């Protein structure tokens, strides 16, 4: 089976919501800066951002600038746009973020045929404008 190019889902159909624990991640994304939630005391990373560090119990958070590169941990090839059921090849990926051990993101990958996506593939962040003036990190083949 040949799928062809992996597309990003159209940003105009994507919404997010935030809360005070998660908003710094999305504010950084608006400036095209990839970050992850890091404990202000023990330096361990956690994603999605939560109120308390599960390792040491601290409420202090840091939002360091990450290199914006990542490695594909797993992926799925999908062939229908979930919004309208039309034929549309997109590849959801779970990636391990470079510079943030233990932190993952779920995103789409592009710049590659869906058939050629593989676990261990290096990717770098691209930014997708979505609803309500938010910006979503996606990835392309590095």
């Amino acid at each position, binding site marked *: 089976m040949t799928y062809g190019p992996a597309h990003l889902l159209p940003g105009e159909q994507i919404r997010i919501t935030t809360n005070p624990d*998660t908003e710094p991640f999305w504010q950084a994304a608006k400036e095209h800066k990839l970050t992850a939630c890091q404990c202000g005391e023990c330096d361990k990373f956690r994603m999605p951002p939560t109120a308390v560090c599960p390792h040491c119990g601290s409420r202090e958070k840091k939002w360091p600038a990450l290199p914006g590169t990542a490695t594909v*941990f*797993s*992926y*799925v090839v999908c062939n229908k746009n*979930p919004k309208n059921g039309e034929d549309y090849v997109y590849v*959801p990926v779970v990636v391990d973020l470079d510079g943030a051990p*233990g932190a993952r993101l*779920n995103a789409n990958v592009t710049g590659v045929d869906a058939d050629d996506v593989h*676990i261990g593939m290096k990717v770098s962040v691209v930014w997708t404008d979505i609803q309500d003036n938010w910006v979503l990190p996606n990835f392309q083949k590095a």
Partner: protein
Amino acid sequence: MAWANQDKCAIVGVGATDYYVRGKSWPRTINDMAAEAIMNACADAGISHKQIDGFAYYSTAGAGYLDKFDTASLMETLGMPHISFSATLTSGGGGCVGAVGLATAGLMNEDCTYTVTLMALQQLPQHRLGVVFGAAAPNPENSFLQPSGLVGPGHLMSMLTRRHMHLYGTQPEALKEIVQATRANTHNRPKAVRKNALSDEEYWGSPMLADPLRRLDFCLETDGAVAVITTTTDRAKDCRHKPALIHACAHGGQREWGRAFAWMGMPDPYFASAGHEFTANRVWDQSGLTAKDMDVALLYDHFSPMVLMQLEDYGFCERGEGSDYVLSGKIRYDAATGGKVNGGVPVNTHGGNLNEAYIIGMTHMVEAVEQVRGTAINQVADAEFALASGGPASLPVSSLILRRD
């Protein structure tokens, strides 16, 4: 160490409605189906439904994924004079069989005398499970998942399956075997939705919905209701059937699994698992038994690969060897051999969620009861121990061992 409440409670009644293809149960209401299942289960137990004084739910008392059970409404509908236990496990279908443990807690605390656990499911167009995750604007947590287009459970399980294939060389043929082996158990079941033998050609031709998973790796979408009645083993002596003794029961799980595919943060080897290792180990500790001691395994099969990963979590085979285990025929049921094939343990002798019906796990519990009663349609010879599992999903998940009286 043996569980203090081992064999002290039992499932004494099982009841169900017909199983309908998704949406076809209308104009029945969901409460009508729930009431029928409860009354059928009580008739099976030989009690009046008005003797029920305990409710032990799972899935946060959800009826399907958008409706909700309410004990007061059920009392109003069915006329129970009083209730003295009403509790639910949190999260979703993972807690299915654990709800019987919750019932046991109520019974052993002498809160109640006859407890019902039930599920009713009606997927009218606006209630379809497969799109529930994608229907609403995501909450702040889910805003880290849903934008990727992982909107249905099949997308999510596919991510785990891909990792399993990468780590262990798991073959798509193993997923085919799971679907075919359990399909082979429905040809003689009047209520099953899918009864025809499944050819290789039909399986491979099934559309790839979320590569590596095909439509036939996804469970059925059915409407219907199922209820089971739990009481103390002392009271069970007065019921109609031999009791199905609650030999071990656990719910919960470990943080590495956590919110599971609603999160995707699980480290290896938990990522490519069913998240059942913790509750599996608990029921083995409670009982002193192992997977090899089971006569039949009723494993929650919302998606075919989750059967394979549960086989590993429960120790039917080593981690990473599920593919070879399945392909050696060991999950098959063969009446001519008393059920077991090639030293294995028959899995989903009722056809499971993939082939018989999907009522969020309850059909597995019914089959476990019938197996240890000795009345199953595809009876395993001399079945003494039946394992049943809740759905691999966000914690809690759950595990149950029933024992023949």
